């Protein structure tokens, strides 16, 4: 069974979003997503300052098996990227919700409300 922390929001394409105290967002891929991809070997991160719309591709994560786009669950500006992943992409496999975060975003839209809570995300994984 994959881990689905209750305090996070989720997208159908298996990204998670954490709302930080300063209202910025941290985003990453779910435990389910990292398990499905297998060992990650390469992460292509965006430039900070990039302004992206919801559903735009924001990162590429590549495992031994396949390359996969990560999509913006919300519109916003990239304010920080997780540089540690350049050298150790496997952090995502080890810690998808903590050390393996991908980017921090200053949201410009209100798509957050459209995302799923943990219960709804667990339900789509069961389908």
């Amino acid at each position, binding site marked *: 069974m994959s881990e689905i922390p209750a305090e996070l929001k989720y997208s159908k394409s298996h990204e998670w979003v954490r709302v930080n105290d300063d209202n910025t967002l941290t985003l990453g891929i779910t435990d389910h997503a990292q398990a499905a991809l*297998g*060992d990650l*070997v*390469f992460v292509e991160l965006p430039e900070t300052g990039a302004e992206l719309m919801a559903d735009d591709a924001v990162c*590429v994560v*590549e495992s*031994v*098996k*396949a*390359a996969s786009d990560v999509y913006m669950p919300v519109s916003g500006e990239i304010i920080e990227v997780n540089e540690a992943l350049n050298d150790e992409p*496997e952090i995502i*496999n080890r810690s998808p919700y903590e050390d393996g975060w991908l980017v921090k975003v200053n949201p410009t839209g209100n798509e957050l409300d459209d995302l799923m809570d943990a219960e709804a995300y667990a339900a789509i994984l069961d389908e």
Partner: protein
Amino acid sequence: MSQQTVLFDKHRASGGKMVDFAGWQMPVNYGSQIAEHQLVRHDAGMFDVSHMVIVDLSGDSVTGFLRYLLANDVARLKQPGKALYSCMLNDAGGVIDDLIVYYMHNSWYRMVVNAATREKDLAWLTQQAAAFGVEVNERADLAMIAVQGPNAREQALSVLPPDVAAAARPLARFYGVDSGEWFVGRTGYTGEDGFEVMLPAGEAGILWDKLLAAGVKPCGLGARDTLRLEAGMNLYGSDMTETTSPLISGLGWTISWQPEDRDFIGRRALQAEQAAGVKQKLVGLALEQRGVLRAHQSVLAKDNAGHPLGKGEVTSGTFSPTLKKSIALARVPAATGEYCEVDIRGKLLPARVVKPVFVRDGQAV
């Protein structure tokens, strides 16, 4: 409905992530493909390869039959048990399958072919064997476990039944031996030493459990693929098919041209291809930058003076856990020089053209 090998429940019990492969439910990994890969490079791991097809060929004319059927020449096999890697070609010189054949004695050879090509291989074998009076007997009653890695033989010998172990212990590389209904080959698909053990399906679970208890961990098809690619071994269906000859698939070394009067299926087509000049070659690629080479990516080939030669294609690509960079096999124009560019998701990245052996016996080549 996809089939299950006799070890299906064992895979589930070890946490195997099951995927469909050639009509079989097989474990792609048991957690971490890279950890399994490293285990085989540095210690020992085991693979369920029971989906592969074991065929016994018997009859007084079986040597003559195989000399006609295969591009490599079984007449080179003088010692009982000696194995030979060969392509089985169609009349146009295209590869129907690649296989290993063990010479057991003058009226018995054992062949192992790919699971994905089972039906067409058996049909072709049966069709061609008729004229030679050779009997084709698929051994679906046997399972197969490959134990691979520098410590694999030692580990396997410690748990094989005593008579089988006694027969397997003195095996030289690329030899096999039978012991009752069991058969052990010192062969594999990883670039490491090890055994491939064929045994009655009903006994496979017992051997699997004994190997587990001895500390040999199960490894999935994912690791098998990165291991074989590092070792520069072709995968049928990706690196060669019915529309590519061995000459453009890096398998020219498996064609036995001598003696000149040996007629084998596909020989005339290969000779014509050679006479006209072989247009392509299969090479290894090592990506210089971060990124991962994948099958079907487009290769922009250049000669050594830097002149463009047109396009090639990656036939197999992966991230090499040993070299920590991406490697591939690619079919490119014959004049391709030391460097090329690969179109990876719209970006052109430089790759070095190398001999397609990246790792052998645990060491980077």
